[in-house]
């Protein structure tokens, strides 16, 4: 019975893959047919888009990807450590936390990406405004999650560690660090997709390179093939980031099980 059950599950899995394939082929085929038979003015068609991505790949797409990636990584490299340190420090200072709480919450309620024009105004059209935007967005995310992580550590646990004779350093290494790590990782998980959004918003507003720039350039020429090509590249970037997040999550889970 168990055998037949797992057999059914396996064939169910095969069915799902089959349906997915069929759906994908139908969608792309329908799109292609519409483009060929009716009009490719508005929606282009998959073959043209694929050809465009290939052309780009031989002609500077890597450079645009690298620019966007560089903005994200630089911003994350600033935002993540700063946010984590601020969260850890403020989390251990209940007096300051109580006072600053509503102020920080107020600052957080500013939709940060709408500040992009300000950063462009301040820092021009290079990479800097995008890096600043990514850094600020990720700073707040990491700050919030780390701060919350420190707060969730049970006071009694801290006290019992103290009673065992743990030094400040030992407390940080054995208790507070591990307890916060899960929260810091969950902050990073959220920050990664947001860093792509922030970088792309900055590039769409004003830039000379990057994936957002690629999309806007195509849209200014009403080049639908180019727009869809840029959209698919962005989608691939988003999926890649999602997979990175899943990888981090699996690692974090394994760590937590140890």
């Amino acid at each position: 019975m168990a055998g037949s059950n797992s057999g059914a599950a396996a064939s169910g899995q095969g069915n799902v893959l089959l349906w997915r394939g069929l759906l994908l082929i139908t969608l792309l085929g329908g799109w292609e047919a519409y483009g060929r038979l009716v009009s490719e003015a508005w929606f282009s068609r998959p073959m043209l888009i694929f050809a465009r991505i290939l052309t780009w790949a031989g002609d500077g797409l890597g450079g645009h990807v690298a620019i966007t990636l560089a903005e994200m990584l630089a911003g994350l490299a600033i935002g993540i450590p700063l946010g984590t340190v601020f969260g850890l420090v403020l989390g251990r200072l209940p007096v300051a936390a109580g006072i600053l709480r509503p102020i920080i919450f107020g600052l957080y309620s500013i939709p940060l990406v709408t500040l992009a024009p300000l950063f462009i105004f301040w820092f021009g059209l290079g990479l800097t405004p995008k890096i600043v935007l990514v850094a600020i967005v990720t700073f707040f995310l990491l700050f919030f999650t780390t701060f919350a992580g420190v707060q969730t550590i049970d006071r009694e646990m801290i006290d019992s560690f103290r009673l065992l004779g743990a030094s400040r350093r030992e407390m940080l290494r054995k208790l507070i660090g591990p307890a916060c790590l899960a929260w810091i990782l969950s902050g990073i998980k959220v920050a990664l997709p947001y860093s792509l959004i922030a970088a792309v918003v900055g590039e769409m507003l004003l830039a000379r390179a990057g994936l957002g720039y690629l999309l806007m350039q195509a849209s200014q020429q009403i080049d639908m093939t180019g727009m869809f090509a840029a959209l698919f590249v962005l989608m691939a970037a988003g999926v890649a980031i999602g997979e990175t997040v899943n990888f981090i999550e699996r690692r974090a889970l394994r760590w937590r099980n140890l």
Partner: protein
Amino acid sequence: MSAQPRDPGAAAAVAVAVMSAAASRTGASESARSVFLHPVGRAAAQIAIVLAMLVLWQFGSGTLFPRVWVSSPSAIFARLVQWFSSGSIWGHMAATVSAAAIGYVLGAAAGVATGLLLGLSRKAEQILSPFVIALYSLPKVALAPFFVIFLGIGIESKIALVAVTVYFLLLYNTLDGLRDLDRGWADAYRLMGANDREIVRNVMLPGIMPWIFSGLRIGVRYAFTAAVLGELLAGNQGIGYLIESSAGQFNSSGIFAGVFILVVCSVVATEVISRAEKFVLHWRN
């Protein structure tokens, strides 16, 4: 709710809840240790800090930082007064608020409906999940130029951008809610003799309400952000247009004033949804 929230809004909400719990706890146990743990002392310190920041901004502007970059509180206030006294702001606010509101309602309704359809059919969810993940992973703002080409630079393209953004948020919250529902509830109802419709009505819909409301609460922020981003990228009215045109004139007061109005709208709307949530989910406290 899960301790590891998927999206930043939820992360912030958890953090704020923890913060306020922590504040009240320390306030109770250590009130003797510091005057700043007393509510009055704390409020005084908060006001002092905000005032100090404003004063630093006001007097640092033009001395520490170039005025054209950072503006100043008084200049921002003057700008707000001018916008409101001339009445020019109302049209812009109406444009942004209505784009956000209409897109929010459409996106949320469609998101919950899709979530229910997918959640109730495991097969459909399995088949469609890679497609949904691919669309979800795409930064939604990248769709803005498409909407502008298809729907024009008017409010329709902003509504579409807001709707798409809110749609995925509610879709995922609904799916998470259905996945996290206590299986025992449905089993218990089934044993009592309930049919599928009765289970959906009595167990599933009310059971996922907390998730839907948390999506709706976070969605307010998403909606305003998406509406303003749409206006920043292309448009001739709305708060985003005000911000963008101020930036084009090197007028930082206008940028700050626009963002300030946006924050007020978003906070007020979030409060409305929170009240509704407390009312509908009154059983939770």
